């Protein structure tokens, strides 16, 4: 158990390091930050001096060493664009993205799992066919189109919900949350739904497939043959066994949720990391882009570590050694 976790940690660290390397080496190519940092009237000599100051003329290896070294020390550098510490910039954006991602994930789970169970148990019903068709269309419309449609309909035409931003937020410690205000919740609905639609479909289909597989297993047939009550059969026996593979995939998806929030955040002007990242691309703000990548990788690795442990909690086969 401890060994298992340590092993996963080592693997995770390896992944993080590789991502850090990619983050640095790839974004170096994105473009010349200097032209973005200076105005039209800045002379070429001044630009050159700035380039020298930023160490952009140093050898490549030296720059990478400095980058990783600083990062390990917890120094994430300063944004070329705003001259603020990158760590702080990203840190202030993390709550927005995480809250959006979590709510989107919750929507996808709270709707996706029951829908998956229903469609698995009634594979031939009309409602099932309808649900499958609707989700199929849902998964086929690009996220940004869904977002724009929602804004247009619920924001502009009906005027029910805000079309951009987070609405009212409350700062709790260093964490700026929109969970504590009505306004914040209202602002959260459209973006979270937009982001959640795709995951919802995936979750539903996954649960459905796994559930159908489990329903055919011997232990479900045996439980049926013993007359275990239907509800218990479906939810205690079948669903629990379904969740084991589902949790893994959901863990993998969470990374996708965070990454796809780039699109959602751009459409809804949601002040999260994704929006910051897009702005940084536009301004060739390399330090921010690099750190963003590393943070994303960190979340991914973290979530999957948690999933691994959940796995152990759910499945006694991983928790308790076989005595035989």
């Amino acid at each position, binding site marked *: *158990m*401890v*060994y*298992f976790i*340590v092993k996963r940690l080592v693997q995770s660290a390896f992944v993080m390091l590789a991502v850090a390397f990619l983050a640095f080496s790839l974004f170096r190519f994105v473009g010349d930050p200097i032209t973005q940092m200076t105005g039209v009237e800045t002379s070429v000599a001044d630009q050159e001096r700035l380039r020298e100051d930023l160490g952009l003329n140093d050898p490549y290896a030296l720059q990478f060493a400095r980058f990783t070294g600083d990062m390990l020390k917890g120094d994430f550098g300063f944004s070329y664009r705003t001259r603020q510490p990158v760590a702080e910039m990203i840190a202030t954006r993390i709550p927005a993205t995480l809250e959006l991602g979590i709510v989107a994930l919750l929507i996808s789970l709270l709707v996706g799992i029951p829908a998956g169970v229903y469609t698995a148990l009634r594979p031939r019903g009309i409602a099932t066919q309808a649900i499958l068709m609707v989700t199929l269309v849902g998964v086929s419309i690009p996220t940004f189109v869904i977002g724009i449609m929602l804004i247009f309909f619920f924001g502009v035409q009906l005027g029910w919900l805000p079309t951009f931003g987070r609405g009212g937020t409350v700062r709790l410690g260093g964490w700026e949350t929109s969970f504590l205000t009505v306004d914040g919740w209202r602002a959260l609905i459209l973006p979270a739904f937009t982001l959640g639609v795709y995951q919802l479909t995936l979750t539903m289909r996954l649960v459905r497939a796994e559930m159908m597989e489990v329903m055919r*297993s*011997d*232990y*479900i*047939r*045996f*439980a*049926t*043959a*013993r*007359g*275990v*009550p*239907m509800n*218990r059969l479906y939810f*205690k*026996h079948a669903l*629990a*066994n379904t969740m*084991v593979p589902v949790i893994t995939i959901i863990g993998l998806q969470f990374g996708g949720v965070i990454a796809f929030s780039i699109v959602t955040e751009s459409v809804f002007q949601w002040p999260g990391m994704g929006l910051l990242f897009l702005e940084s691309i536009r301004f060739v703000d390399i330090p921010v882009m690099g750190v963003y990548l590393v943070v994303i990788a960190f979340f991914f690795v973290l979530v999957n570590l948690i999933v691994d442990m959940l796995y152990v909690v*759910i*499945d*006694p*086969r991983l928790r*308790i050694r*076989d*005595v*035989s």
Partner: protein
Amino acid sequence: MLRVENLTVKFPSRFGDVTAVENMAMAIAPGEIHGLVGESGAGKSTVGAAIIGLLQPPGFVADGTLQLGDVDLRALDRFEAHALRGKRVSMIFQDPQTSLNPLMRIEDQLVETILAHEDISADAAQSRAIDLLEEMGIEDASSRMRSYPHQFSGGMRQRVVIALAICTNPELIIADEPTTALDVAVQSQVLDLIRRLADVRKVGFMLITHDIGVIAQIADTVTMMRRGKRIESGPTAEVLGNPSHAYTKQLMDAVPPLDRKIDRFRVPKDEEIDATGQGDAARAWLLGAERETAVGLTLEGIAVSFPGVRTSMWQKPAPHIALQDISFVVRPGSIMGIVGESGSGKSTLAKTLTGLIKPSDGTMTLAGAPLPGGGARARKHPSRQLIQMVFQDPYSSLNSRHRVGTILAEPLWLYGLVTDKEERRKLCIDMLRLVGMLPEAIDKYPHQFSGGQRQRIAVARALLARPKVLICDEPTSALDVSIQAQLLNLLKDLQASFGLTVLFISHNLSVVRQMADDVVVLRNGRIQEQGPCATIYETPTAEYTKELLALTPVLPADWRP
């Protein structure tokens, strides 16, 4: 108590309704163990499923009467049927490994089942569960009950399964191949348990099995099925001991006896294509160059261990020892039988010989030359050709995406035996004839054949490499008994004709007895006993061998035709 009359079960398909069971009739009284016997596809499991109302959709009961006591089973709605399940009729499945919910404690599964049918307190249900488990022979039930299924061994698990089936005191239990996945020792214990339950609790059992030995051992009455229809039924000794029906006779002829060796099984002429009369070209080819000498195989001190799964940071995992100190000699041109239960290491031994696994110690010698193991055996090593193998599962041993012709021709070009494509094809066709197949088979895909036919194709593939050693790893354990008889006959003929050295691996003592000249008894990776076949079977010295022989179900001597 249970009365089945005129039962017909159909499965709709795009070719119209397929009748799986037709005009089936049977009756089971309380305390009676009624064997339902038949080969695969006979429809015996379908009968069981129809009674308990768990037919796989879209199958349905088309006609007939299903009466359990005073209840007309066909008249029940969905909810009534479900309430009846467990309460009055229950079921035991074949594989105890998969029959229990892996995520729930045994206790919870038991208590949940009891509470589903009886209005008693959870405490009462729990104490009943403990009593039951103890009745089933599980010691220290009150603490063991808190374990998860994976913490029990296979035999124990089947006891738990039986406890679950019995915990609500049903009148009837449908046991679908309850011992097929178990080793003989465990099988015997489980059968004893079933007998006891029938005698003491007066539970009626419907024992579905393909194993005539099992039926002979415990069934009071038996119904013989074939292709969805009842062949005959009656008291076991009457039906099996003195078969009147031709099919039953055939079946009884095909059962290998444990206590003597018969030269050939009696097989109806129309079902076996005589391997001796056909495939002369292939025969000539096999007997051609370099065929004169048979080769021997020697193993000395072979040990195989696998690295254990690491679970701790500080401890190196203990290696799992699969084989230890295995030494024996296979005489040239003889058949060596390897007997052992699951986990004895017999398949590991086959893999070691074929170079799939590297032995951690010991030497192997083939025809006097050292035989390197594992990765040390080069892809072009001559032994690759000399040693061929016939596998257990006819459904996976042939690549289902390749035509039979492609599969058969592979060794011919791989070893450069026949370079001309047309010649290869001719030889393959002739080889098919030799193993008793029709030439048309060459352009078909494996899944177009039955298990027995596929096993013949697998034998043909092995022969086409012109081997001197043939390793047969449980070649008949997936086959019905009549097909098994045919294949055993074929193997015997081929071995005799071509002087092959054969290593015949099986868990089935009766089968080995029919095949082997010498026998090695394996247990937990060690040799228990070895020697000439007759000696081992008649005067075993090792305790283990004695036990195995004693527990293997046999037909009463007076049934022998």
